[in-house]
């Protein structure tokens, strides 16, 4: 699996002053896998994602993407990675076509026609301003932008947060189509356990700064006879606090 690993997190710790939020976390993500990184709020997911993207240097340990240290080679590696933030971060007053043009200027491998098709399919007009899009459209627009660069690695941070059921289903359908067509490697964080249960091949659960579980989803369900939600609840309830 080492050869096939697109991401290798090697004993990563993140500390803010006295607060250790990620404690010696290690895991790998194989090529073509969908890895769901779960944990309650404050479990260290966002810090870990920032380390993965090369936006933050781990206090100790390393993250390797495509076999290279992310922090040292982040500029080069970011060209092969796309990030879908929790909320669309494009300025609201910009028109869709301007945002697309900006992305196009950054990525040499930009898929102009595929992005156009995708926007037409989700009913996003290129002359609309970002602010005029519905929440669901903004999520799909952000996904379309991320996929436009034909990423080998896609990182999504709670992409369906706050979407209604229709928008959420549209999002997952689009996302699954991408998996089927290109076999993109994916890491996503989410609170939508039901949504990712059928999509993730592997799951990692962060609890109290540690990676409390790192298993193949189907194997985990078979061995434990429990759904992902049950396993997640069991593991994260340890702290004794209510969610």
């Amino acid at each position: 699996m080492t050869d096939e690993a697109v991401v290798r997190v090697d004993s990563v710790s993140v500390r803010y002053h006295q607060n250790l939020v990620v404690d010696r976390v290690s895991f790998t993500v194989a090529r073509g896998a969908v890895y769901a990184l779960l944990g309650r709020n404050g479990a260290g997911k966002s810090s870990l994602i920032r380390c993965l993207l090369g936006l933050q240097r781990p206090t100790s340990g390393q993250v390797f993407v495509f076999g290279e240290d992310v922090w040292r080679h982040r500029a080069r590696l970011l060209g092969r990675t796309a990030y879908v933030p929790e909320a669309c971060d494009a300025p609201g007053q910009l028109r869709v076509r301007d945002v697309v043009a900006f992305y196009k200027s950054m990525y040499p491998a930009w898929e102009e026609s595929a992005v156009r098709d995708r926007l037409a399919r989700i009913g996003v007009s290129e002359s609309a301003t970002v602010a005029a899009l519905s929440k669901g459209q903004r999520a799909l627009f952000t996904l379309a932008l991320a996929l436009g660069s034909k990423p080998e690695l896609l990182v999504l941070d709670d992409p369906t947060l706050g979407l209604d059921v229709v928008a959420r289903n549209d999002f997952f359908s689009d996302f699954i189509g991408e998996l089927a067509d290109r076999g993109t490697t994916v890491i996503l964080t989410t609170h939508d356990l039901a949504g990712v249960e059928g999509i993730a091949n592997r799951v990692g659960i962060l609890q109290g700064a540690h990676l409390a579980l790192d298993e193949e989803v189907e194997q985990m369900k078979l061995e434990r006879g429990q759904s992902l939600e049950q396993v997640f609840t069991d593991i994260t309830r340890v702290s004794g606090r209510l969610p």
Partner: protein
Amino acid sequence: MPTPRKDAWSDRIPVQPSDPRPIWSQIEEGLRRLLASSALAPGDPVPSVRELATDLRVNPATVSKAYQRLVGAGLLEVRRGDGTYVSATPPAVRKSEQTRLIRQAAMNFASLAITHGAELKTARESLEQAWEELSSNRRGDGR
């Protein structure tokens, strides 16, 4: 039988991601059920991996695994560059599988009827009526 809608696979193959059974096995079981009940006949096309995965909202690799197992069992066949179809010549093992599925479904039906306090006679009549309806639909299906 009404022509299946393009997006109806999620109705025909019930998949519950929260069910502890692996999803590939739920898909496999669902397709086996459709085959055993002749809802899918020999030579019928099955949806592409992409289509079924999108419709069921599961990972394409999971659908692929279910298909591979059914191809391995001789129930489905891949026609290069064309798609996946129900085998024109289903293997002999299908008979015992059919018996098993029918027994299982009969058990479900019987327990439902008993729960609702139905007499055996009423239950039998309902079965015969359903049988008639399906048979006449199949005859009118042009297959």
